[in-house]
């Protein structure tokens, strides 16, 4: 019952958020203009409503959902509420790959994937594997080591990213985009680039959710209960990396979403991953949708969205640390 109510609230927030996103912007528009577009097919504001504002709202939602789902998976995978795509270094790694691709001037598509997202995925995956290997000492897995290694690896990747941007020196704008994230230039192509992968990863995650519940009991127990542990683990690691990488390649690094949202949802509805994945995705999407709304309306001009999510997320992260024993 509680879940149903939460779902209802989230859906209302989502619809309201999209509506506000459509109506708010530097060019003054009101409900009538929107009504005229939908009912009378009046094209005066079509580009502004559809190509700019709607695409932006949907992309913010999708990226938020992807990052949160990625975080929910990583938290289950590492059995730790501190995990998240930013903390374990996936985001920074993916951003490194994407910028490397730009630096090398590669702009191709291979079977529907842009080279940029392949690079983002590969380097994100490399970082997370490295972090995982380094945080295992003699078979014992230490959470502190994981977090610290993740932060160190992430910092290294960010430094290299900044270095490439510095060398290329096209503009400061690029540095801000890749390191703090933005949806200012969202378009429908980016949505078609993210949407299918999000759905695919979501379906796989949902399908394996029961196995994730078993993993929490420990690998040996899970194995004895009939869970193909190693395969499941590999799949989860791959899709969580993929989700973070595809988000980063369209919006730059946006921190904290993948960390605080799944954690908060776990507190709200409990640790069952069959529900956790759905609610995390939905809430993360709504969180970024509203964050982006703030990012583009708080000041004249645009704020990098990473500033907003960090301002909300960092205190929460500190709170989490203080709660740990």
């Amino acid at each position: 019952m509680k879940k149903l109510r939460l779902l209802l609230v989230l859906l209302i927030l989502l619809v309201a958020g999209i509506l506000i996103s459509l109506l708010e912007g530097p060019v003054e528009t009101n409900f009538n203009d929107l009504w005229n577009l939908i009912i009378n097919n009046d094209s005066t504001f079509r580009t502004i409503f559809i190509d700019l504002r709607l695409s932006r709202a949907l992309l913010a939602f999708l990226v938020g959902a992807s990052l949160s789902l990625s975080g929910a998976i990583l938290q289950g995978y590492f059995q730790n509420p501190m995990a998240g795509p930013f903390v374990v270094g996936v985001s920074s790694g993916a951003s490194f790959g994407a910028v490397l691709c730009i630096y090398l001037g590669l702009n191709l598509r291979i079977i529907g994937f842009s080279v940029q997202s392949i690079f983002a995925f590969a380097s994100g995956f490399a970082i997370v594997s490295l972090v995982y290997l380094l945080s295992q000492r003699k078979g014992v897995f230490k959470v502190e080591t994981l977090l610290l290694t993740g932060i160190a690896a992430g910092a290294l990747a960010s430094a290299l990213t900044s270095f490439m941007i510095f060398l290329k020196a096209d503009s400061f704008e690029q540095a801000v985009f890749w390191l703090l994230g933005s949806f200012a230039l969202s378009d429908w192509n980016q949505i078609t680039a993210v949407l299918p992968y999000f759905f695919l990863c979501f379906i796989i995650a949902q399908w394996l959710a029961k196995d994730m519940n078993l993993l929490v009991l420990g690998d040996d127990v899970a194995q004895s209960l009939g869970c193909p542990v190693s395969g499941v683990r590999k799949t989860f690691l791959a899709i969580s990396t993929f989700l973070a990488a595809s988000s980063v390649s369209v919006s730059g690094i946006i921190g904290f979403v993948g960390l605080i949202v799944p954690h908060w949802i776990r507190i709200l509805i409990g640790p069952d991953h069959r529900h956790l994945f759905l609610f995390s995705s939905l809430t993360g999407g709504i969180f970024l949708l509203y964050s982006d709304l703030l990012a583009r309306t708080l000041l004249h001009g645009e704020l990098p969205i990473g500033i907003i999510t960090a301002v909300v997320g960092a205190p929460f992260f500190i709170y989490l640390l203080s709660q740990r024993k």
Partner: protein
Amino acid sequence: MKSKRIHAVFLLFSINAVLLGNQQKTIKDDLGFPFVMTSPPQRIISLAPNITEILFDLDLGEKVVGVTRYCDFPEKALKKEKIGGLVDLNLEKIIALKPDLIIGFRGNPLRIIERLRGLHLPLFVLEMGTNLETVFIVIEKIGTITQNDKKADILVESLKKRYDKTQAAIRDVQHEPRVFLSIHGTGLWTCGKGSFLNDLVGKARGVNIAGKIPRKWLHYNREQLIHDNPEVIITLSKSQTEFSKVREWIKNEAHLKGIKAVESDRIYFLDENLATRPGPRLIDALEELARILHPQFFKEER
């Protein structure tokens, strides 16, 4: 209103048809993307201050509907709708202004250029190049796309005349002084090989001490500055008051005391807006710079 516009378009189209044999002309912009020329543009958006200045010089000020927040010259440009800065352009505002020509340059981020193109807006991107001559090319190009070639020719002609006059005046220069260009900002910002400012110094018969470094803008090393010992320091500033502050700072820096330019008090002001915008006023900057570096050749004018 609408019928009038259609009428006007029809009229222009028929003129076009006579001139071009009923063909739309397609030219390429400096990024290599096609630009279709139809009737002369009536609603122009400029994405850089120098482009705005050129447009106003071509008497197209009335047709400019949007400029950046840095477009402050001529004064009339201040009254135009602002569409953001050079790198943080506001897409919504651009679309709402319904432009039939947007002129951008390579300093606008490529991601934004691509996004504008994705929205099928009539965009022409200019390369500002690395030398003074590019200004003439840029003016001619803007003349072409606004279908105002004659005015552009006249403007370029008059600028070239002034350019030649300056060159003639300093023809007999024996010694080209070493110059350090100080650009407003924290520390010793200056320009290297790839910038037209470097070219400007050369054309004014000076030697930019950072002129061999293959970067457009850079932070000059203090040690290097002392070692290179410039004879003249040119400070690009927005105003005289800002200049006096920088000048005081340079004169009071203990480690810069030994530099020739400081010793002989050859620290000069150059209007930042003239010198950093590759537009018609770059010639003003050149004349000014030549006077500063070689005052003896301009005596009779004073």
